[in-house]
Each structure stands twice: as C-alpha cells, then as structure tokens.
C-alpha cells in the first residue's frame, strides 16, 4: 500500500496529480504505459492495464493501473481519473479527495453521513465518507455505486480511536504523506461488497460509522449501502474480471501494458479457454498451496495489489524441511520485507482449489517462479518484475509478478459463469 518517497518527489507528485485531474467530463491524461504491445484483446469490455512508475512517476514497482471515469449520478458530468490501482485483493472504488474534483453526493441517513474505516493487511488504514457515483470503465458502466472518498489526516471528522487503534498508519495525503501510490484504488476482488453481511447484521468496530457535527459512532451498514465491487453492478459482463499482462524479462521492464477484461464467458473475447478453475472458500476467498510436499490449507490468495511473490519467511525457508537459503534484503525502508538472494532462486508451488465449500479435491496447477534480489532489481529503471519476492509469514500471497505472461480470472461471489458460480480463481 505504500511507496517510499522523498519529500521533493511528494511535492512533485501532488502537483502533477493536481494538474492531471480536471472536471467536467474531459478525459485527462491518457494512461502513460507504452511498452510491448499488450496482451489481451480489444472490445467494449476491455480497459488498458499499465504497470509503470505510478502517478507523476513517483516510483511504484509491480503495481497495475487503469483509467476510471466517475460521474455525478444520473448525469454526464464526469471526471476521468488515470493511475487507478487495480486490486483483486480488495473490493470497491476509493478515490483520494485531493484528486476528486466532482462534488459527489455523500451518503446520508437521518441527517448523518456514512463514513468508513478501511483496514489493510499492511496495518495501514483509509478514512473518509461514503459517496455515490456512476462509474464507467472501458465501455462498461454501473449506476449509483457507493464509493469511498479518502480524506487527508487533517480533515474533519478525523478517524475515530477504534479505527486508528487497529492500525498504525493512516494512508492518505496531507502534504507530507503521499503513499497510496495511486490516484484511487479499484478493488475488483472475489466479493460483491467490502464487508458483507457481517456489517449489515451487527455493529463492527473499525468499519462503518455514522457521523454528524458532534462526532462519529459505529454503525451497521446495509449490504446495498456498503462500498461495492463495481464490476458486479455493471449492466453486463458482471460476473468477474480477467487480468492479462505480457511476459517480462527476468531483469524487469519499464512500462508494460496489458488488459483488464470484464466478464467471464459473456463475450467472444473473455472465454475460459484452457484455464483451470480453482475454487476459493466462500468466507475468505483463499485456496490451498502445496510447497515442497507441505500443505498450507486455505490461507493463500492471488492479489494484483501485492507487489511481489510473498511467502513464508527467511528462517522458515532456510531451515529444514525446506533448506532453501533465502536471505532477507539489507535493512532499509525501500527493501524492507523483500528477499535478496543472489543468484536467483527457482521455485515451484502447486495451487490447489479450496475444498472448504464441499468442492472435490482435484483442481490444481503447479507453477514455477523465480525470486531474484530485490536490491538488484530496484537498481534498474524497471517498473515490472516477474521475480520480486518477500516474506509473508505462514502463507503464500501471489502478487503482480504472478500475473505476467498469464490470463488470470477472478469470478465474483454469487455470480454465475460458464464454469459455475463464483467465487473462484482460474488461470
């Protein structure tokens, strides 16, 4: 979720982003990926995906971006936002308030405004109000979609204590912090909503709030009022997404372009072909991994919002039974959490569909991947690496490096596809 930036870069980034966002429906700054003739097709359901250095060239690595148009509901007053991070590990559109130029209507109930605390695995959080927007991506559109506006730390009301106490850094921009690494996040993962029935049935700390001039209190949020994965609200091609990125050299590449295709088996350009379907469990959207003969059951996932192959840790890998010497990188904020083996280490793992929902054992695919020294990779101008790796204690998080050279399908919960009802992963 974060980018390590030096102060002048932050100023530059903020200025550039300010310049890049305009109002009134004009399409601003086309996505800047050039690169190697992307993979995937074209059509009204295909958006361009780029893996570049981020908005204003702030220096992101292995993050994928697309362009999204948001409109005042029911009107043609729109704003096009580039460098929206594409994240299959979350649900919902979240836009930095400093980027947003439209006065999107905020969601209110009995005079109170709905706010949300959004927590991420890296112990950061976002805070801001829920608003409603029409969303257009490529030729697809969804009407009146609840989205989150990401407020700066200085905005009022601030994050309540039970939000800030569950994480250690508010992820936003306030003049000194610009670490989202994107103008907005587009969460198009396995679920329809960002919380689901839990938040509709009971008041859960650090999720939804009802705010007025006297402050904020924890609140339930109905399913339809929650921040939605926009894809399942599209009029068509609404059962899932396909991310396609071309293969990149082991040394990395600068600016890669591919495609983000909506729908699975709904048009001639989004069929499953020979992809293997891996069911994921309905609660957590995880699957099983077998690595060197050891099973890690229902704790693993594929996530375009993670910028590496993140798995286990140096001590676990280096010691029996694995005996794979996998050094951590030298201590620095840029390299923290990444592996730095030299030479590169080739590995393989089997991804096995979850049986948690009664699916028979059987669906599995074995993949090969490399882990190179992050220090060496970051010394290049590359923005796209297929061999960036790091630790994830006790499980496997297959991030963007996994997507290069593949078509990766994410089917949304409850949505039917030619291969059955989601959620599932296929590639």
């Amino acid at each position: 979720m974060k980018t390590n930036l030096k102060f002048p870069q932050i100023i530059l980034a903020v200025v550039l982003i300010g310049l890049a966002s305009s109002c009134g429906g004009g399409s601003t700054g086309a996505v800047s990926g050039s690169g190697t003739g992307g993979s995937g097709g074209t059509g009204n359901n295909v958006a361009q995906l780029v893996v570049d250095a981020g908005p204003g060239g702030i220096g992101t690595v292995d993050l994928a971006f697309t362009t999204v148009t948001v409109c005042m509901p029911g009107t043609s007053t729109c704003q096009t936002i580039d460098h929206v991070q594409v994240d299959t590990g979350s649900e919902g559109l979240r836009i930095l308030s400093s980027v947003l130029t439209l006065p999107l209507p905020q969601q209110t109930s009995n005079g109170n405004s709905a706010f949300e605390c959004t927590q991420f695995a890296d112990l950061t959080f976002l805070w801001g109000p829920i608003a409603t927007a029409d969303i257009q991506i490529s030729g697809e559109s969804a009407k009146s979609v609840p989205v989150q506006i990401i407020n700066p730390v200085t905005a009022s009301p601030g994050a309540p204590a039970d939000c800030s106490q569950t994480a250690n850094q508010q992820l936003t921009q306030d003049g000194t912090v610009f670490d989202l690494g994107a103008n907005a996040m587009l969460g198009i993962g396995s679920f329809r909503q960002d919380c689901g029935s839990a938040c509709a049935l009971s008041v859960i700390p650090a999720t939804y709030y009802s705010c007025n001039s006297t402050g904020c209190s924890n609140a339930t949020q109905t399913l339809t009022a929650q921040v939605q994965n926009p894809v399942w609200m599209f009029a068509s091609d609404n059962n899932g997404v396909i991310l396609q990125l071309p293969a990149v050299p082991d040394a990395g590449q600068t600016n890669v372009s591919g495609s983000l295709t909506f729908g699975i088996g709904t048009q001639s350009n989004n069929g499953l072909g020979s992809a293997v379907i891996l069911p994921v469990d309905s609660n957590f959207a995880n699957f099983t991994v077998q690595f060197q003969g050891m099973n890690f059951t229902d704790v693993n996932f594929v996530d375009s919002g993670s910028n590496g192959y993140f798995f286990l840790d140096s001590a676990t890998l280096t010691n029996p039974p694995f005996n794979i010497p996998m050094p951590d990188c030298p201590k620095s904020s840029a390299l923290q959490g990444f592996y730095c083996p030299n030479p590169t280490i080739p590995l393989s793992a089997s991804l096995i569909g979850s049986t948690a929902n009664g699916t028979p054992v059987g669906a599995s695919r074995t993949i090969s991947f490399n882990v190179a020294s992050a220090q060496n990779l970051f010394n290049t101008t590359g923005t796209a690496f297929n061999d960036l790796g790091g630790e994830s204690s006790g499980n496997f998080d297959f991030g963007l490096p996994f997507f290069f050279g593949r078509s990766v399908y994410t089917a949304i919960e409850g949505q039917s596809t030619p291969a059955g009802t989601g959620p599932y992963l296929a590639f």
Partner: protein
Amino acid sequence: MKYLQAAVAIAAFAILLSASSFAALGGDVNSVLADQAQMKAQRRVTQMTAYSIHEMQSQAGTTVREFVSPEGKVFGVAWQGQSLPNFQQVLGSYYDQFIKSAPRQRKHGPVTIQMPGLVVQSGGHMRALTGRAYVPEMMPSGVKADEIR
C-alpha cells in the same frame, strides 16, 4: 466492621479494575478475560503441551487466539478474520511502541514489524486479515513463532 467490609469491597473492586485495564500481551491470564469482555466473545481453552490457547470469536467474525504460558503469562496473540483486532486491547503495554512504529516501505503486502521485545506480523487481504504478535523472550522453550496462529 461495616467500614472494613466497605474497604475490602473497594479494594477488591480496584483490583478487578486494574486487572481489566491490563490488556493481553505480556499480561497475565486475567487480561484474556478483559479481552473477552471487550470483544463480547465466547472463549474456548485448548491445553497444549507447552502452553494453553484461549480462543475467542468476535461478532465481527474475527477469531483471536491468546497463547498463555504455564506461568500464566500471555506471550502471543494471533488473529484471523474480517477485521484487525483492537491493538490497544491485545497489545497492552506494547501498544505505544507499536503505534509509533509506522513502517513506510516500498512493499505493498504483508508486513513484519520488529521492535525491541516485540514482533508484529500481518498479512492477508480485505475480508481475510491474519496476523500475530508475540514477545520472543516470553516464549516457552521449544515453542516456535509459527505455532502462534
């Protein structure tokens, strides 16, 4: 006599208050009960060879497991579910150190925060967050961090 009874009652109440204001990690087993009350959760205890696991499930669908040594001290906390736990509650006296650690890194994904006397690890994705916090020097001998899950 009545005054004495009242004094005893007040003293007992004060002890209860202080017990409930301790949070779990590094605290004694009473702090688990405080966490249970805060989470409004059911608690299930599993006795292992080298420690006991107190497992609580919150309304939020988040499972918190607190690992208690034979001496009755909480040396580790693990969580899994929709939300992160309330770290002020579960980290107790370690919370101030944790909240100031604020890692800023280029990695977008799981994190490990190494602090003097405390390790916090967090991973997963939206609606499926997992992690653990533990005090290495309080781990019973032979127990590995991987067991805190």
